[in-house]
């Protein structure tokens, strides 16, 4: 019962914080979606870090360590490299967004390439990638509450309550609500992860080194990369691919618009790598569970952290862990919800249906869309089976397809045409969808390759196809001086 009280209390605090975040601000579209571009280092930092500490990392990070061992190390590596890239990539994006008063990621592309249809395409890709991500947060929320309340609240009930809370404060406060709750979430998760990651190995094994020795003795090879499958080549290709895709998530991309100035990104590039070391302690929790709660398989590996907590701690403390877990679902969920509704209102509604709609109208539509998206996500959460996992894997590779067109658009003289960008993204997305749905690996696709290359992440094929198409179509549609573009493709 005490666990339940703590989880309920933190949910109410989140609702209250989210609601009061609007205070003192006239919630027009720019305030609602990008916080009036007024956030300082701390808030931008938290919004960007929000991407790292989602239910995926809390449950999934420990579950991945528990179930797969060494491959989990990639999570630590890819974000680090992504932050290095951000030092040079985010300032020009922010400058352009500010001078053109952009609200969303597709907005950026449609301005850069002077092509509204490109904006609509990207908005569609974004929404297709975001919904499964939101579903995953809700799913995680249901699992956490059901376990941490010792079954007193069914996961279905928890999902509905969570969806209502998030919807309420997103409608009222938009991205400001997300920022305030990010602060609460990060303080809690930081304390909990540090404590668990240090305490669990010591309590159950006598120390960190002892724990890893025991695991190594029981499961030789578990702590290093295997020769095949999710081995070294898989690690290298996945780290590189996901590092490129990291800032292509529309909610991460758009949270860069909230910054007050561009120097904030450069400063964050050296703070964020250290900050995400907290993930290391989440891994320790998962490793601690390996020998203590053996036998979890399939989707259940995500429960390892909570199963171990249940046998280690008193109910009230399980409640505290559960409350932190609830926040890791609610906060990213609210960011995704804000972004997805901005996308639909600003880029799909204004982009296709009503080109001359003013900001006030778009802001009204965005708020109206919030509960609709939440309902769709709840529907998928309660009814979608394994398909949603496939969709999520696709999501990351989907947004990565935006990277080539983005990088080219930042060059002083962009040779890529709007047709090239459009066709490249379509080609990349089609390849991702086809290979994910058919569970193709590079080994099956290109059987003549040497063994080592067969474990390269399949996402690279899509990215390569994307770049080739982008280059070819751009070459064909290059506007020539003094001559009308003759090869302009229709779309």
């Amino acid at each position: 019962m005490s666990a339940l009280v703590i989880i309920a209390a933190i949910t109410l605090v989140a609702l209250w914080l989210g609601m009061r975040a609007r205070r003192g601000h006239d919630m027009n579209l720019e305030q609602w979606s990008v916080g009036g571009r007024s956030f300082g280092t701390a808030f931008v930092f938290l919004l960007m870090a929000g991407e790292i500490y989602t239910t995926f990392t809390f449950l999934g990070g420990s579950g991945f360590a528990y179930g797969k061992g060494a491959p989990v190390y990639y999570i630590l590596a890819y974000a680090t490299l992504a932050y290095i890239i951000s030092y040079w990539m985010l300032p020009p994006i922010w400058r352009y967004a500010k001078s053109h008063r952009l609200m969303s990621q597709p907005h950026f592309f449609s301005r850069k390439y002077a092509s509204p249809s490109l904006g609509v395409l990207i908005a569609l890709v974004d929404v297709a990638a975001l919904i499964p991500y939101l579903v995953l947060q809700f799913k995680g929320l249901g699992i956490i509450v059901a376990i941490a309340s010792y079954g007193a609240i069914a996961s279905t009930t928890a999902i509905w309550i969570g969806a209502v809370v998030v919807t309420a404060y997103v409608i009222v406060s938009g991205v400001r609500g997300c920022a305030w709750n990010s602060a609460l979430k990060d303080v809690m998760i930081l304390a909990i992860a540090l404590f668990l990651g240090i305490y669990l190995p010591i309590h159950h094994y006598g120390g960190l080194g002892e724990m890893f020795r025991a695991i190594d003795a029981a499961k030789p090879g578990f702590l290093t990369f295997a020769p095949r499958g999710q081995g070294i080549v898989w690690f290298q290709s996945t780290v590189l691919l996901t590092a490129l895709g990291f800032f292509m998530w529309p909610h991460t991309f758009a949270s860069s618009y909230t910054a007050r100035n561009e120097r904030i990104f450069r400063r964050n590039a050296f703070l964020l790598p250290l900050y995400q070391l907290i993930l290391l302690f989440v891994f320790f929790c998962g490793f601690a569970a390996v020998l203590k709660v053996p036998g979890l398989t399939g989707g259940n590996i995500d429960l390892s952290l909570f199963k171990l907590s249940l046998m280690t701690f008193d109910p009230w403390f399980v409640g505290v862990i559960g409350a932190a877990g609830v926040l890791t679902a609610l906060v990213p969920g609210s960011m995704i919800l804000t972004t997805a509704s901005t996308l639909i209102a600003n880029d799909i509604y204004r982009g296709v249906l009503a080109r001359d709609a003013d900001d006030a109208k778009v802001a009204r539509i965005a708020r109206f869309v919030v509960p609709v998206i939440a309902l769709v996500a709840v529907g998928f959460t309660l009814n979608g089976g394994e398909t949603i996992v496939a969709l999520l894997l696709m999501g990351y590779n989907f947004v990565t397809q935006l990277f080539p067109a983005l990088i080219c658009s930042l060059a002083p003289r962009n040779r890529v045409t709007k047709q090239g960008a459009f066709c490249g993204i379509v080609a990349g997305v089609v390849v991702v969808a086809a290979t994910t749905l058919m569970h193709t690996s590079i080994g099956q696709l290109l059987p003549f390759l040497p063994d080592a290359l067969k474990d390269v992440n399949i996402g690279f094929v899509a990215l390569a196809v994307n770049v080739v198409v982008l280059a070819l179509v751009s070459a064909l549609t290059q506007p020539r001086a003094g001559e009308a573009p003759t090869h302009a493709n229709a779309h």
Partner: protein
Amino acid sequence: MSVRLLAALPFIGILVGVPFVNRTEPLVLGMPLVLAWIVMWVVLTSAIMGIVYLFDPANRDDGADAADVEVRS
């Protein structure tokens, strides 16, 4: 300008270095060697980006964001 090249080191360390340290023993700070190697690069990345920041002329004070410096200093 050349300071920026430092930023390439973590890519090399993580992407190219890992095959050479793919071992459990010796444990470093209680962690398997390969994990400790990646953690070391995370910490070094932070240090490197700090150096890049300090030497980057784009961050010389123009007074524009003096207010912001206070938030985190």
